[in-house]
């Protein structure tokens, strides 16, 4: 029974906050689009509901709808309606600062006091009787770091302190306090109240039970009419807390209101809780509290002290949440790109090796029509490391055919292609690791003066370094000569090399065969792990007499009679049918992916379309040809094989060993003396003997032979 001072101090379970991701999304959007650096306080709404589970408390939740709408954002969510029984709305205020320092520098005591004052005013002005939810007014401070997508925040649930604190005389489950009949009636009345959209979200109510055991639920403002004798009157509130021995925080201000407004010293309260949507009187608690009013409470002007800053796992520190994974556009782009490839692997190509695609480093020599397309295709396949080499600037005609450039790149004389291309790649996919090198590729048969010699040698060395530090080299330049040096350097180090060359209406895409020497000391260091492992096993492949596949220059030498196709290739001519470059570039990249998935990689033998060799054509990506030659006028494409030539000016044994012996001096000699390479390889001899035949041939073929000699 109630005795003065016989009870213990009434302890309330604090509100717990839960912030839905959508709240931060909208706050970021508002900050970026509407508020800018304006940090005035923002009125917000919190939502809570009575406890609905015996073991879990409910939270005060913030959702996207808690914030004012962002007019730029398409409002795809139906407007929040009052009367939602699961979302009782509570007013709050948000102080969002612009810097971490100002976040920590906020006067937290002052802010808490200000909110407590609002509650106090609402109590005395009668606002609580109109809209009782204001008793649970709350405060939120935050700092949104929109570069890192992390949000620092801290809730406060201001509670007016009763001094001395209220004492608890009795607390028990409601089902034990009411009679059976009363309990049933109370449940029914509460369920009705909760099911009506007019009253469902009114969180502070009166529950009266008459002597006939009939219960009624009323608004607070009807208190005067509930003063009949013989009636049990309970001050009820929606209690999100589930604990059996403690009422929820909302009761604090409710008690403060009751004693300030109606001067009661004994209060019977009902912590209203539910289970799966229905009133649960064994979970709900009925208690009796004793309140002593201090003198100060009569004076309206004197605002009581307040407590209420939320603890973070028991500590008085703010909380922090990082949403980079779901908000940072770069991360989202990366995961979307990964998703695409993974889907491909899941549905169509289980043996797709995404690791190798993500880790491989590609060097693109040339950032023109071919270079731009190859770069894009590589990114589509998941390649992330791309280096482009080009010494040219973007010209006004380029954007039409060179898919990485726009008009802006052409202005003021034009940006360097290599740099503009890298910029463009990064705009398409921010996670790409792209580098641009502005450099000319030294070419044989184009002699240089002695002043230029050093810089040319420097370029040679630089090219050698670039080739050494990449796994795949694409030869995408517009002259034949510019392909010579890279071919030699790649043959020397057994790098995967892919050439694409365009004629006016025909193209060639091919993979170079391995170089004449299989083992190089640098090989294992430069190749990605899986390739080097394969290499280890294949050291002897080409020493058993099988011919290795040829390079771009091998072809020319071994096909002196195939003059028509030679004529259309690579005539220092940059006029081509626009459709060719995208086709050739796409094939070049698909060819690369084929090589990467072939167990023998660069050593893979050539396959021709429509062949009947059962074994290797069962590879999931299909056959792996050596050369693909296409002709637009015929809408036709052929796969061909060309083996290496012992007199090849770029990749034959003689040339490569000479390079290994004499290095840059050898290169310089080739650059400065047009006939040097032919003499070295014995080509001169070969052509001389071919020329003696010429006398019997037609004029047409004579012209073609001349072109064969050109390098």
């Amino acid at each position, binding site marked *: 029974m109630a005795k003065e001072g016989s009870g213990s*101090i*009434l*302890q*309330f*379970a*604090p509100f*717990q*906050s*839960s*912030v*839905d*991701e*959508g*709240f931060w*999304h909208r706050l970021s959007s508002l900050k970026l689009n509407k508020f800018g650096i304006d940090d005035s306080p923002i009125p917000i709404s919190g939502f809570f509901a009575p406890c609905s*589970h015996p073991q*879990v408390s409910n*939270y005060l939740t*913030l959702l996207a709808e808690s914030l004012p709408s962002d007019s730029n954002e*398409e409002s*795809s*969510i*139906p407007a929040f309606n009052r009367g939602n029984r699961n979302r009782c709305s509570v007013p709050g205020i948000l102080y969002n600062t612009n810097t971490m320092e100002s976040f*920590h520098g906020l006067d*937290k*005591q002052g802010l808490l006091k200000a909110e407590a004052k609002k509650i106090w005013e609402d109590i005395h002005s009668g606002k609580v009787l109109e809209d009782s939810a204001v008793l649970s007014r709350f405060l939120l401070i935050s700092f949104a770091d929109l570069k890192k997508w992390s949000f*620092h925040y801290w809730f406060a649930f201001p*509670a007016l*302190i*009763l001094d001395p*604190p*209220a004492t608890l005389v009795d607390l028990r489950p409601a089902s034990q306090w009411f009679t059976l009949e009363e309990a049933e009636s109370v449940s029914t009345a509460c369920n009705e109240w909760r099911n009506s959209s007019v009253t469902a979200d009114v969180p502070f109510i009166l529950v009266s039970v008459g002597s006939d055991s009939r219960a009624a639920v009323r608004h607070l403002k009807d208190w005067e009419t509930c003063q009949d004798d013989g009636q049990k009157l309970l001050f009820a509130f929606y209690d999100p807390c589930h604990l059996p021995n403690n009422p929820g925080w909302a009761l*604090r201000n409710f008690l403060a209101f009751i004693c300030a407004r109606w001067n009661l010293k004994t209060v019977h309260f009902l912590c209203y809780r539910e289970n*799966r949507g229905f009133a649960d009187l064994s979970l709900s608690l009925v208690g009796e509290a004793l309140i002593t009013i201090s003198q100060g409470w009569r004076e309206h002007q004197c605002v009581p002290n307040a*407590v*209420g*800053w939320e*603890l*973070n*796992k*028991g*500590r*008085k*520190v*703010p*909380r*922090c*949440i*990082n*949403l980079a*994974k*779901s908000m940072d556009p770069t991360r*989202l782009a990366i*995961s*979307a790109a990964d*998703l695409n490839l*993974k*889907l491909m692997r*899941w*549905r169509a190509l289980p043996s797709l090796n995404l690791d190798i695609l993500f880790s491989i480093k590609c060097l693109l020599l040339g950032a023109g029509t071919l270079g731009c397309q190859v770069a894009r295709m590589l990114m589509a396949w998941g390649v992330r490391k791309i280096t482009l080499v080009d010494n040219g600037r973007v010209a006004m005609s380029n954007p039409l055919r060179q898919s990485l450039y726009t008009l802006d790149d052409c202005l003021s004389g034009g940006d360097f292609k290599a740099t503009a291309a890298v910029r463009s790649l990064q705009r398409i996919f921010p996670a790409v690791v792209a580098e641009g090198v502005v450099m000319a590729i030294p070419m044989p048969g184009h002699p240089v003066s002695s002043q230029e010699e050093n810089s040319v040698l420097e370029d040679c060395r630089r090219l050698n370094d670039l080739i050494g530090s990449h796994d795949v080299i694409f030869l995408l330049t517009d002259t034949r000569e510019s392909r010579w040096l890279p071919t030699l350097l790649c043959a020397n180090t057994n790098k995967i090399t892919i050439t694409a060359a365009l004629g006016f209406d025909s193209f060639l895409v091919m993979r170079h065969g391995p170089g004449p020497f299989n083992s190089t000391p640098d090989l294992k260091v430069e190749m990605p792990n899986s390739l080097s492992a394969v290499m280890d096993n294949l050291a002897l492949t080409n020493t058993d007499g099988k011919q290795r596949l040829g390079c771009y220059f091998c072809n020319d030498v071994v096909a002196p009679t195939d003059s028509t196709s030679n004529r259309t290739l690579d005539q220092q001519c940059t006029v081509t049918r626009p459709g060719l470059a995208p086709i050739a570039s796409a094939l070049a990249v698909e060819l690369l992916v084929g090589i990467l998935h072939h167990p023998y990689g660069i050593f893979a033998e050539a396959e021709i379309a429509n062949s009947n060799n059962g074994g290797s054509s069962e590879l999931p990506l299909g056959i792996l040809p050596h050369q693909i030659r296409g002709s637009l006028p015929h809408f036709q494409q052929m796969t061909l094989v060309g083996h290496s030539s012992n007199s090849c000016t770029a990749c034959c044994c003689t040339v490569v060993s000479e390079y290994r012996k004499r290095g840059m001096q050898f290169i310089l000699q080739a650059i400065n003396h047009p006939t040097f390479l032919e003499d070295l390889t014995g080509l001169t001899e070969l052509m001389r003997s071919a020329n003696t035949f010429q006398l019997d041939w037609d004029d047409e073929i004579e012209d073609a032979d001349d072109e064969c000699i050109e390098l």
Partner: protein
Amino acid sequence: MMDVFNWDGTVSAKDFRIGALSFAQKWESLNSAFPPWSWVPCPKHPWLASPEVDIDQNSQTDPGEEETSCSEKEDDIDDATLVQSNHHELHYCDFHIVYSYTFRVPVLYLRAYCSDGRPLLLDEIEKELPACSSKESPETKWAFITQEEHPYLKRPWYKLHPCGTSEFMKLLFLGGDTGQPKLEVVLELYLLSWFSAVGQVVGLRIPCKMLNDRR
């Protein structure tokens, strides 16, 4: 009227809507132990929106974010505040069923978060999914969880990719030895059957009462 052997495993938007409403109704009436599904119409978008469910998943995992910051000097606790030392971290999971016009099948979207609102990442979710309790890769033949933008809420959610759905729906109905069902029956039971299959991946089970109720 198409017969069931020519059926491609998909369902029309109209049939989806009918099926969804009936599903939600049955769930609520037969399954009061679980939170109800609700139909959320979305007038501005071509997609039909979805029922929504909250399921508590009790798990004693480590609490999430570590906050480093200065602590306050003021005494913010008074005697009337209950300080709880025990803190069970709970994970919540929201499920949406959305109709996909591209694939013409229902798609299950899900999102998980901690009690304070922090979203859970896929690897954290996968730890709790029954399909991943073994050491198998989470990518089984039919279940591929991907992160994609929710078509209605415009935020990243996780979904069970629908490209295998029509195939396994065909198998479900035609693979058995119960003879050839009528197409109307198939479409009526579509959502229920679909849910019984995909629900397993994410640990949602249909109570027997619903499966047996053929009204």
